């Protein structure tokens, strides 16, 4: 299992567009990928779940990845967060 923690720097947080892009990125991997806000944890491959987190600027999200391609997935999710949020 791999985890990635990241504090959101985008002023608008995870609204619809970044939620869609995050889900698309997570969907490239076979591993089970969960994302947690300070409030709850959801499947990072489901748009509705990711939007419902209501992640705001300054919130720290924790992504948990489990599966055969978890190394690559963790690196990709880290890179996605850094370049988009």
């Amino acid at each position, binding site marked *: 299992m791999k985890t990635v923690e990241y504090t959101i720097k985008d002023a608008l947080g995870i609204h619809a*567009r970044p939620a869609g892009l995050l889900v698309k990125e997570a969907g490239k991997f076979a591993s089970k990928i969960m994302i947690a806000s300070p409030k709850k944890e959801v499947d990072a491959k489901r*748009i*509705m779940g990711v939007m419902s987190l209501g992640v705001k600027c300054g919130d720290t999200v924790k992504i948990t990845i489990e599966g055969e391609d978890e190394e690559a997935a963790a690196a990709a999710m880290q890179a996605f967060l850094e370049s988009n949020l």
Partner: protein
Amino acid sequence: MFGKLKNLFGGDTGITIAAPTAGTVVALESVPDPTFAQGILGPGIAIEPAEGRIVAPADGTVDVMFETGHAVSMTTADGAELLIHVGIDTVQLEGKHYKACCKAGQQVKKGDVLIEFDPAAIKAEGYQIVTPILVCNPDAFTVEPAAGGTVAAGDALLTLKKK
């Protein structure tokens, strides 16, 4: 009888998602934002609104009412996860010209008002109000347009069939 059974299971006739606002139907591919046009948030359709309100396109439960009032998502009674996003890049308005009329967890009936907004004021700030209506769980449904041209709120807009 077979017809009734089929309807019961979302068979031949499918599930109808109604237009959440009056206006002109626009193909999703024509929406000037690649996130929508490329279907990253899901398949669907868009409407150029002719009025300043969004109503529930089906019976269901509100999942997310964005604090900024510019978007709402709901799960219909049939299990379709819908996102209605009023305008392009309008998250930037941070709630200005929008009024959220529902909240997360609320049960709604088709036609209940979800969002009110001021189209003229939003356009005056330089934003487009074209409104994508998307199905966020296309793994569960096929999505076909059921309308073109102009629609009234409540008219059939999309036909969904369970996969």
